[in-house]
């Protein structure tokens, strides 16, 4: 279905639950791509746009705002090293070897909005609006903690964006861009 048919699938006044804004990391060889949802055991995480803003006010007192660029970023702290987390293993190895190339500009990050979709009444399976940032960085900023090993990460989005949809909410989703 075209992206334009997707709508905010919420009742009037209903707030979108946080779990419906999903961030998924993808990395690895094209024949062996790995994916992992980010945010397990994270209580709070937001995509910060970090806009570069320039403002000017004319002699009439009207203020104009120029947005020169944005540098979206999202932190996940804690990001625990947990069983089944391929990303935690990958980043731990990379950071301990100080292999910066292993985590700089090599990730595709999907932002999936499960609250914008085709609705459940259509005859086809529900598809969800999503964007993919190609060539992102996931930077481990520390490792350690108290009772459990924490590997806090920062996701730096590339802004190389493809708009599209995903066909399901699971690791094996298919992403289709908006032209199909």
């Amino acid at each position, binding site marked *: 279905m075209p992206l334009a048919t997707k709508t905010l699938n919420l009742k009037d006044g209903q707030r979108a*639950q*946080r*779990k*419906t*804004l*999903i961030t998924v990391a993808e990395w690895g060889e094209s024949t062996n791509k790995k994916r992992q*949802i980010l*945010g*397990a*055991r*994270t*209580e*709070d*995480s937001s995509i910060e746009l970090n806009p570069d803003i320039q403002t000017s006010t004319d002699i009439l007192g009207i203020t104009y705002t120029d947005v020169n660029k944005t540098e979206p970023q999202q932190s996940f702290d804690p990001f625990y090293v947990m069983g*089944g987390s391929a990303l935690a293993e990958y980043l731990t190895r990379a950071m301990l070897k100080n292999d910066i190339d292993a985590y700089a500009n090599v990730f595709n990050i999907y932002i999936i909005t*499960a609250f914008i979709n085709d609705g459940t009444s259509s005859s086809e399976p529900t598809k969800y609006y999503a964007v993919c940032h190609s060539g992102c960085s996931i930077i481990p900023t520390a490792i350690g903690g108290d009772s459990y090993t924490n590997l806090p990460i920062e996701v730096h989005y590339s802004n190389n964006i493809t708009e599209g949809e995903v066909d*399901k*909410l*699971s*690791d094996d989703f298919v992403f289709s861009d908006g032209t199909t």
Partner: protein
Amino acid sequence: MDKNKAIIEYLFNCPVIANNPLFFNFAEAEDNNKQILTVANDKKINKPFIDGSVLKKFTFTIIDYRSVIYQALVNDPEHPNDYPNENVDEMMDVQGIIDWVTEQNDHDNLPNFGTDCVVEQIEALTDTPRLNGVDSSVSPNLAKYSVSIQVQYLDISKVLWNK
């Protein structure tokens, strides 16, 4: 799966409990009787995560009734560090519940709360049993020991994402 039933099934594996009458919430106070006492678990301590999972705690108390004896401890030079006394023995026996729970946790032998829950930890909330009081209206008098136990688990029933 009902968590109370899961706990009952789990506790039947504890040697201190297995061979004695085990009651649920309502018990006859007799020597060696055990009682599971449910606790209203406060939802405010739940910790929600952004993927929809919620960290929860399930707490309950085990009451253990033991007969008491009014006998002074004797320091016998021929048997150092050995104070034959029923009260000491009973206390050590109740301590066995805490030690068993600790050992099971260390070996990742945890209660089964069903597929919607990932049980992470079980622990006694105190290192030693609590002595709540003595019932002197029965003969022999009964001591009431209690051990509070907490299960920490991740409720994944509301998670949207399938791995």
